[in-house]
C-alpha cells in the first residue's frame, strides 16, 4: 500500500516538475522580443539589441503571466481574458467531442480490424494505418476539401443543410473541426483496440471461452474489453498530444476561432502589437500546457490507481 502511495506521489511530482519546466520554457521563448535577431559583424555574431533588453522582456513576460496582469490587457478591443473565455469554450467543444468521437469510432473499428482471418482483414487494417502514416495536415485538408465539395454542391449533412466549410457562427460549424480533429486519434484508438484484441484472442482463456460456446463478440465483450479499455487509457496521453497539436491547424484551416486560431493570430496579425501578441500567446500557451498536464496526470493516476486489477 505504501509502495502504491509512493508511486502515486512520484507520478504527481513528476508531472508537476515537467509542467513547471515546460511552462518556464514557453515563457522564456515567448518572452524574447519578436524583433530579436542575430547578425554577423566584424567576425562575430551579435544580437540586434542589448542582452539587458531581452532579459527584461523575458522577466516582464513571466511577471505578466504569473501576476495575471496579462488578463486585462486589451487586444483589438477585447481583453485577453475575454478572448480566452470565448476561445476556450470553442476549443473545448472541438477537443471534447473529438475525443468522444475518436473513442466511439475507434473501438468498434478496432474490433472489426481485429478479424485477422477475414478475407478483407488487410484492407480493414490499412484503413486505420493510412491516417496514422500520413501527416495530420493532409487528413485535415482532405476533410476541408470534402466540406467544400459538400457545400458547393449544396449537399446536406445529417439533415442540417449545407454547412459552411469554414467559420464558427453556428453550433454546427463545429462539426467539421470535430471530424477533422478526431480522425487521427480514432485511427490510433482503432489500432490499439485491434492489437489488444488480437493479443487477447490468443490467450488460453479466450480459447477456453470458445470451448464454452462463446461467440467472438461475446469473448471480446466479456473477456477482453477490460484489457482493451486499459490499453486505450494507456494511449490517451499520446492521443491528447495529437489532438492538441492538431488543434492549431484545424482551427486555422476551418477559421474556427478557438485557442489555436487565436494563438496563431496573436503572432501573425499585423494589427496586434508584437509585444502584446507574444505575451497573450504566452498566456494561452501556459494555460493549454497546464490543462494538458492536468489531463495527462488524471489519466496516469487513473491507469495506476483506479485500474490496478487490470494492470496486475
Amino acid at each position, binding site marked *: 500500500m505504501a509502495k502504491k502511495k509512493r508511486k502515486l506521489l512520484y507520478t504527481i511530482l513528476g508531472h508537476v516538475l515537467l509542467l513547471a519546466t515546460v511552462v518556464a520554457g514557453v515563457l522564456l521563448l515567448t518572452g524574447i522580443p519578436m524583433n530579436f535577431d542575430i547578425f554577423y559583424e566584424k567576425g562575430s555574431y551579435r544580437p540586434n539589441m542589448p542582452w539587458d533588453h531581452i532579459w527584461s522582456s523575458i522577466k516582464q513576460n513571466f511577471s505578466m503571466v504569473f501576476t495575471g496582469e496579462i488578463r486585462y490587457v486589451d487586444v483589438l478591443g477585447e481583453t485577453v481574458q475575454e478572448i480566452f473565455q470565448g476561445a476556450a469554450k470553442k476549443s473545448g467543444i472541438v477537443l471534447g467531442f473529438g475525443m468522444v468521437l475518436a473513442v466511439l469510432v475507434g473501438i468498434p473499428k478496432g474490433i472489426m480490424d481485429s478479424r*485477422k482471418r477475414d478475407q478483407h482483414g488487410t484492407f480493414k487494417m490499412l484503413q486505420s494505418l493510412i491516417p496514422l502514416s500520413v501527416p495530420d495536415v493532409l487528413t485535415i485538408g482532405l476533410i476541408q476539401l470534402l466540406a467544400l465539395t459538400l457545400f458547393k454542391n449544396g449537399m446536406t449533412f445529417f439533415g442540417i443543410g449545407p454547412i459552411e466549410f469554414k467559420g464558427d457562427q453556428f453550433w454546427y460549424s463545429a462539426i467539421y473541426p470535430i471530424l477533422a480533429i478526431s480522425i487521427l486519434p480514432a485511427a490510433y484508438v482503432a489500432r490499439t483496440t485491434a492489437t489488444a484484441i488480437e493479443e487477447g484472442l490468443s490467450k488460453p*482463456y479466450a*480459447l*477456453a*471461452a*470458445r*470451448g464454452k*460456446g462463446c461467440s467472438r463478440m461475446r469473448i471480446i465483450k466479456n473477456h477482453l474489453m477490460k484489457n482493451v479499455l486499459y490499453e486505450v487509457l494507456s494511449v490517451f496521453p499520446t492521443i491528447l498530444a495529437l489532438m492538441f497539436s492538431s488543434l492549431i491547424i484545424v482551427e486555422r484551416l476551418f477559421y474556427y476561432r478557438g485557442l489555436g486560431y487565436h494563438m496563431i493570430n496573436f503572432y501573425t496579425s499585423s494589427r496586434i502589437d508584437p509585444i502584446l501578441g507574444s505575451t497573450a500567446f504566452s498566456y494561452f500557451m501556459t494555460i493549454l500546457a497546464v490543462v494538458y498536464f492536468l489531463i495527462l496526470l488524471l489519466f496516469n493516476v487513473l491507469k495506476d490507481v483506479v485500474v490496478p486489477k487490470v494492470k496486475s
Partner: protein
Amino acid sequence: MALLEVKNIKTYFYLDGEALPAVDDVSFSLEEDQTIAMIGESGSGKSVLVLSIMKLIDQPGKIIHGEVLYEGGVKTDLLTLKERAMQKIRGNEIAMIYQDPMSTLNPLIPVGKQIEEALIIHKKGKKKEVKEKAMSLMKDVGIPDAEKRYKDLPGMFSGGMRQRIMIAMAIACNPKILIADEPTTALDVTIQAEILELLKKLQEEHKMSIILNTHDLGVVKDMAHEVCVMYCGKIMEKASKDTLFQNPLNPYTKGLIECMPGQGAPKEKLHAIEGYVPHPSDFPKGCRFSTRCPYAVEKCHKTLPDLVEIEPNHFVRCFLVEEGIPLIKHPSTNIL
C-alpha cells in the same frame, strides 16, 4: 452405438508455404459412458486432435479432411456445421477442460461468473437460477465455502482448485462428452489423484463419455476403457486398455510402457525411448517411428504401414507385427 465417431481426420498447419501434418488420418470412436485415452509424447498431435473435434483450430491450422460424427439425437458431422451451430454444441454437448488451469481461467472475472457463462450462453435458467447452479457446481467439484468464494478471482485459488473450477465450468451444462486435455499435467502429484477421482465420480454421476489426453500411463490405467497411442499425428496402436497393457504390439507402445516406473527390476535405471519426436516438417517418409525404432528394417524407412486389425479390436501400425516378424533389436538402427 458410438456417441462420437472420428473418421480419417487430417489437420495440417500451413507455415512458410509448407503443409505440416499435425493430425494425419486419425479415426476412432467413443461409446457412451466410456473413456478413451489418447496417449503419446508431447508433439504427437493429441491436443490438435481434440481441438479439431471441437472445431477450435485457428489459422495457420486447417482441418483438411475427415468427419466427426456426433450422435446427439440426430447424427451430425460437426465439421460441416457453421460456427454458430458449433457454438451451441461447445460447452453444451461437448465440453473441454484444459491442461493449464492457471491460464485458461480469465484472471479478471470472478470464478462464479465464469462458471455461469456457459449456463447463460446455453440458456440453462434465469439469472438467479444460474447463480445457484454455479454455486452448487462449485460445491460438487469440492470448492469449500462456495458462496463466499463465488466472487473470488482465479488468482486467489490454488492450481488444484482452479482445475476444479475448470471442471465445474465444463460440466455446467451436463455435456455428453467431456474432453480432458492433459487435465493433471500442470498439477502436483497429490492433487492429480484428487482431480482424477473427481473426474471419475462426475463421469458416473453425469453419465459422460470422456476423451482423455495424457502422456501419463498411470492415468490411463486408472481411467480409460479404450486407448489410442499417437505418434507424429498418427495412431500407432488402438486397443482396449487391458489388451494394450497386457499385449502391447507396436514398438512405440512397448517403449512407452517400458518407460513406466516399476516395469523393470528394482534399482534398475528407468527406460527411455531414445531420440525426440521429430518436427512435422521432418517426419520420415516411411513409418513415423522408424527413426527411433530399435527394430526398424529397411522397409520401415521407405513405406508408411497401415493401421491393421491384428486381433479383434486391436489395431497396430507396424510392418513387423503385421507380417509376424519377431522384434529383434537392430544394431544398425539409425536412432536420431
